[in-house]
Every structure is written in structure tokens, then in C-alpha cells.
């Protein structure tokens, strides 16, 4: 009888131990994670998990990336999408932004170590975007050109201008796994096909591989990948 009861209980004990170990490991990961992600200030890394992170470990700089739809969207319904692309005034970095109604997603990078994923809204002719760890952008649309200021998470502030552009200009993104490390690659592409990108492998940044703009394919460290064009309503910060 006791043997029988033990037989009935031991799978539950196994199950309980497995659940416990899983929870402990998750907790350990999410506890260390913010410390690991704030230093490199990668806009897409860590801290975005909705429920598992301990509340104390959540970075306080989390911006509200949810675009709030305003009833008076300025752009006419027919023109759903627009792409603006340009460079910062000092030529340090390239920026591209995609607008979908009143929702805006943007990517700024220098092709080496600086990058920022930004998200926000277009209200009238004013664009307000936010990224991780204090990154942000404010600008206004005048005659098909966005003039404004962009700030990276490292505190670098740069004026920029970006003109409304036709494809292949735009923001391209790929998420993949490289050598077991989560990898996110972003490209800002100018209308003439000039592309500047940064690949973040784990927590190190480097120049992105060239992107084939005809079919969105690329090759990084010998393995092929595909990039997707980003629209204004895509989530590029958090999520």
C-alpha cells in the first residue's frame, strides 16, 4: 500500500521539482538580465518581458512605446505609408523612419556601434519617438521633409533631416540566432540604395552584412537570413 502510494506521488514530486527548477532559472536569468542589458544599451534587449521579471529589476527608463491613436490623424486615409530617410547633420549616422497613419517606427545607426530603435506617433506635423534607455527623437514634417533632433541611449544628441523617399529606402530588420546568441540586425536604407546597418549579436555590436534589397536576403557568418521591411505600425521597441 505504501509502495503504491509512493508510486502515485513520485511523478508529482518529479513534476514539482522540474517546475521549481524552471522557475528558479527563469528568476535567475531575469535578475541578471537588466544589469547585462543596461550597459550596452541595446534598444531591443531585455527588460521587455511582461510578467516574469521581478518588479524591482525593471529598468525605470522604460518608455511607453505604445502608440496612442489620435482621432484626428493628419495624413489622408489614402496615403497609408510613407518613408523618410536621411542623415544626421554631422554625417555621423543614417536614419530611416516608416510612417503608417499616425504611427512611426524609426531606426538610426552609424554602421558600427551606434544604433537606436525608436517608436512613437505623428501628431499633426510633429513626430515624437522614444526608444530604450533614454533614446528619443523629436521632429516636425515640413514640405515632405522631417527636421528634428535624435538622441541615442548613450546620450549623443544629433540634429537630422530626412526627406520623404521611395523604395528601396526604409527600415529593415532581421532577428535570428547566431552561434546560440540572439541576434538583431537593423538597416537604414537611403533612396539611392545606400545602406547602413548594425548587427547586435548577443551584446556586441558590429557592422551589419550587406542586404540584398531585391529580396531582403543577407548572409552573416556564413548563414543566410532574411530581413523584413518595417512599417510604422510594427513594434520595434519592446514587445
Amino acid at each position, binding site marked *: 500500500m505504501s509502495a503504491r502510494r509512493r508510486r502515485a506521488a513520485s511523478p508529482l514530486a518529479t513534476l514539482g521539482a*522540474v517546475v521549481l527548477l524552471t522557475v528558479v532559472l*527563469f528568476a535567475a*536569468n531575469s535578475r541578471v538580465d537588466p544589469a547585462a542589458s543596461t550597459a550596452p544599451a541595446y534598444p*531591443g534587449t531585455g527588460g521587455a518581458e511582461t510578467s516574469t521579471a521581478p518588479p524591482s529589476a525593471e529598468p525605470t527608463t522604460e518608455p511607453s512605446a505604445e502608440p496612442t491613436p489620435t482621432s484626428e490623424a493628419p495624413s489622408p486615409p489614402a496615403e497609408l505609408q510613407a518613408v523618410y530617410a536621411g542623415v544626421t547633420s554631422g554625417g555621423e549616422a543614417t536614419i530611416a523612419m516608416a510612417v503608417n497613419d499616425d504611427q512611426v517606427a524609426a531606426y538610426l545607426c552609424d554602421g558600427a556601434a551606434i544604433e537606436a530603435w525608436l517608436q512613437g506617433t505623428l501628431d499633426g506635423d510633429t513626430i515624437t519617438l522614444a526608444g530604450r534607455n533614454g533614446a528619443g527623437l523629436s521632429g516636425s514634417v515640413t514640405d515632405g521633409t522631417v527636421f528634428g533632433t535624435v538622441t541615442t541611449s548613450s546620450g549623443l544628441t544629433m540634429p537630422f533631416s530626412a526627406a520623404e523617399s521611395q523604395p528601396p529606402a526604409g527600415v529593415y530588420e532581421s532577428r*535570428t540566432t547566431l*552561434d*546560440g546568441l540572439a541576434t538583431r540586425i537593423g538597416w537604414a536604407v537611403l533612396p539611392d540604395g545606400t545602406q547602413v546597418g548594425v548587427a547586435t549579436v*548577443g551584446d556586441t555590436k558590429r557592422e551589419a552584412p550587406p542586404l540584398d534589397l531585391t529580396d531582403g536576403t543577407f548572409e552573416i557568418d556564413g548563414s543566410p537570413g532574411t530581413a523584413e521591411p518595417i512599417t510604422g505600425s510594427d513594434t520595434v521597441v*519592446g*514587445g
Partner: protein
Amino acid sequence: MTHTRPPVDAPAPPAETVVSRPRPRAEPRDAFRLPLLSFLLAGCAVALVLGVYAAEHEPAGYSLDVPGFSSPLYVKAWLTTAATVFGVVQLLTAARMHDAGARPWTRTLHRWSGRLAVVLTIPVVVHCVYALGFQSGSTRALVHSALGCFFYGVFVTKMLALTRRGLPRWVVPVLGGAVFTSLIALWLTSSLWVFTSSGFRL
């Protein structure tokens, strides 16, 4: 003539007890259905929660490093390989679990190899789900992601099924077979892929 009657009556009570032994509470034949269904649903829920969390959670890219291995990738590859070896032990001992003539340590070996196997996979799945997330970029990644969710769902179902007596005899072997098959497929789509594409090393 009258002599024969008592012998006929006499064996009746023992025969009744023999019949009633397998079903002491006189449960209906399909009494297992509801518990089995709830175990299966619990497994489905686990698989679904794992998959949805892995897909919705922003991949952290972060991983705990284990000394002695060349990279986190190889930690995972070797942990999965070790779990698979224990999985093979599971397969070899599973058939003898209910064999009365089996050596007594067979059951102990089966239970503990299973526990070790699943415990070895936990650091791997935590890394997969937390750092990488559900990926569908390639067929291998998609199959691996889906099978990973399936594996833990079936595992939970099997653990729950083991707690209940009176299930049909096929239930535990089928569940165990599904756990084993998905473990092997997970190994093929991860460790073997790493060893063949990145090199066989620690």
C-alpha cells in the same frame, strides 16, 4: 448428486473476489476518460503557454555561461546530448517496468534516468525560451521550437497520468513514446545540427 452441489457453491465466492480485484470500486469501463482528458488538456496548456510566452517575449539575448565549454551554444548541445543518452536508457528500461521477472533495479533506473534527463533539459529550455524565443525563420528552428513546446506538454501529461491507476495499459507507453520521440527529434534539430555545422567539440 447432492454431493456435487456444495463444491459448485464453494468456488463461487473465491471466483467473485478474483473478478472484483482488478476493479475494487466497480468503476465503469470508461471511468478513465475524464482524468485522461484533463491530463491531456493540462499538457496542451503547458505547451501552449510555453510557445506563446516564447513567441511574445522579447528575446533577451542573455545567457548564463558555464565554464569548461567553448560557448553557451555548446553547453546546450552537450546538455541535450546527455539528456538524450538518458532518454535512450529510458527506452531500454521502459518495457521492463511492469515485467515481474525484471531485476529490481530496473524500475529505479528507469525513474532516475528519466528525472536526470528532464532536469538536464531545463537549463536548455530556459535559455531557448528566455534568450532566443520561438523562432520560425528556418524549418529547423520552427520544428525545434514546436517540438520543444510539445515535449514539455507530453512530459506533464505523462507525469500526471502516472499518478492515476486504472488507465488503459496503452496510455503510459504511448505518452512515454511521444516524450522519447520528441526528445530524439529535439536532439537531431539542435545538438546534431550544432555538431555537424559548427564542429564536434566541447
